[in-house]
């Protein structure tokens, strides 16, 4: 009973929050609701018994990713409302709606699961983190290492891409840039 309530609560909340993320004109609102949605999704993971995944979700998404976004926001003007041309919104809603309907249809259809056998079954009485650790460091060791390298690469890439001309302000108007350029030319 507790599980049902939790599921519906989380579902309603995440859908609502993500809708705000997608619809909102304000970047700050969007980001905040996204972060909240992420937290609630970790709730799903806890319900599902994937404790470790839930924790990772919290740490990585809500902690790291959101932090990245918030830092990135500092480069841009987050206070301004975003002006977008929303052409063809009918098509967009149609596509979104259609995909939702079709996906739901597919998933709602009975899934024949007889043929599916667990390759790496969970063990009763053993913690999720332990299970995950065993699989991650045996079967998925190589992908895990690759993922680690990828994260390193991404980090370096992020620093290099964002780090150029850090001395210049992005939020001030571009005229300053031009001034600098003209000064350089003058020299």
């Amino acid at each position, binding site marked *: 009973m507790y599980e049902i309530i939790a599921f519906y609560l989380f579902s309603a909340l995440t859908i609502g929050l993500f809708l705000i993320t997608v619809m909102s004109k304000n970047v700050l609102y969007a980001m905040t609701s996204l972060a909240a949605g992420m937290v609630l999704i970790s709730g799903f993971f806890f319900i599902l018994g994937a404790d470790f995944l839930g924790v990772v979700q919290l740490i990585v998404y809500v902690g790291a990713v959101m932090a990245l976004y918030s830092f990135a926001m500092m480069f841009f003007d987050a206070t301004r409302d975003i002006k977008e041309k929303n052409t*063809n919104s009918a098509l967009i809603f149609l596509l979104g709606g*259609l*995909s939702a309907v*079709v996906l739901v249809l*597919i998933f709602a259809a009975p899934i024949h699961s007889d043929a599916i056998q667990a390759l790496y079954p969970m063990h009763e009485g053993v913690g999720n983190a332990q299970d995950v650790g065993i699989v991650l460091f045996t079967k998925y060791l190589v992908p895990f290492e690759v993922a680690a390298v990828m994260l390193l690469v991404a980090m370096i890439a992020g620093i290099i891409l964002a780090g150029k001309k850090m001395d210049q302000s992005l939020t001030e108007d571009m005229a300053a840039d031009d001034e600098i350029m003209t000064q350089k030319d003058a020299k």
Partner: protein
Amino acid sequence: MENLVYIALFAPFVSSMFSALFGMSPRQTFVGIVASSLLFISFAASAMLAFHVYTTGTSVHVTMMEWISAGDLTIPFGFLVDQVSVTMMTVVTLVSTVVHIYSIGYMDHDKSFNRFFSYLSAFVFSMMILVMSDNFAGLFIGWEGVGVCSWLLIGFWYHKEDVSREENPSISPSWAANEAFIMNRIADLGMLVGLFILYWNVGSLQYDVVFSALPNLSGSILNAAAVALFIGAMGKSAQFPLHTWLTDAMEGPTPVSALIHAATMVTAGVFLVIRANPLFAMTPEVSFFIAALGTFVAFFAASMALVNRDLKRIIAFSTLSQLGYMFAAAGLGAYWIALFHLAAHAFFKALLFLGAGNVMHAMHDELDIFKMGGLKKVMKWTYIYMGLASLALAGIPFFAGFFSKDAIIETAFNEGTLVLWAILVVTAGMTAFYSFRQVFLTFLGDERYKAFGIHPHEMYKFVLVAMSPLAILAMVAGFGMGSFEHFVTKLLPEYHMSEHTHHIAWILGLVVLVFAVGGIWLAYKKYAKGLKRDEKLENSFIYKLLANQYYIPQLYGEFISKPYAMLSEMMWKNVDMKIVDATVDGIAKFIYKSGDGSRKMQTGNLSNYLNWMAVGGVLLLVVAALSAMLG
């Protein structure tokens, strides 16, 4: 004997090659002399072979080498000298030799003198292959070979311009040459089909093998083969409806007309029917058709000759008519009579043409007999020769034509085909009329040529001498009829008149004679005193119809050549360019345009790309859902 065969065959070839060496150099008389001597050697060899065959009664058969060998087919270059072929060889080489010598005189002003001899000898070589071959394929080599030589020789004066049909019915020498070649090709297709039929049913194209296998074949195959071969014969012998090329072929130099289009090549069709007599003897329906067609052509051609004004064309029509006689005889089963008429006709018709050549030479290539007259004074010998030949052609007793033609008419009576007999008799009268109309208009009466400022002169002496063998043969050849029959019937089936026919033969002969003499008399009355033009007659429908050759050349032009050209044009411009090629280009254009069109999708706007991606994704989802539901 084998060497003689090769000498007879290859002497003309050597002559041709020798002349060809000088083909592009200016006129050299010795070329003509060498060519003529080589031809005479060929004639001598042929005569010796004839003597050999005549005395021993055996035939000479040589196989030179294998030609084509593929699958089960083996075609050798084999040559057979028997009674039929040796007759043809002798006639061909004799007339050829005379014509060669004649040409030295006739072509003496022509800058392509050497080239002419090369072609002429090549023709003789082809003709020798045609008559000597021991198989149908070899015959076909000669058949096509004479066709090409005929093309070369008709178009000898290729530099002449095309003119309208009203000005010159055969447009130009090169046009006439092409017409002749193409018409012959139509018939050659029939001939080829005949060869195929025989091969696939007999397994060989050798005469002896084919003929001995004939009794085993079914009637329909025999008929098909006979019809196909006869179609081939119709082309070469210019039978209706493939006859128009022969008169147009008169564009060629006159010696060519004498040799090719009178004495030898055009008789190849008759030769084929005689050669394949076992086949035709087994197909009475086809044979009767041949006889009927021959009779029709005899009359048809004679009718056109009645009103024609062109010296050579009249003779050409008469050739056509005489070929009809030969086919009539062959079709009625009297093969040896056909062959006899072929030989006799070769002599007097060649003589007639050569005489016409003399007149042309004298009249500076004027051919309209209405512009001649009175030439007897300056061209006595030519007059005599042409008179003799015309007498022979008309079938006046004791000249060559009398015996042979009479025999044919008698055969028609003997076979009970009285309609054919009647037509042939009437045609004999017409023959006499047009022959003498031509002779009288040319040689007698008022000297109309003077109005055109022409000063005619007699031909060179040696030319006249060279023509004399033909003249003599035209007079006396008929007397050899008995021994000829004896000679060739060793090979050809004998033909005997019935008791009844034999009984009344003299009456039949008399009837023919009455018609012939009547024809001559009519011609004499009308034309000997000079030309009196009868406007009313000349404007009558029949006269115009005949003068325009029943409008058949025009019909062919309007209903075959022109539509073919138009259809070709349409095939090219509309079908090939606008349908076939346009389809291909259309596919290419479609690919290009679809690329060009879809290029607009590349707006560079990521949002649009995302939209497209989503559309694709959703579509795939839908497909997945549908297939899951349906599957």
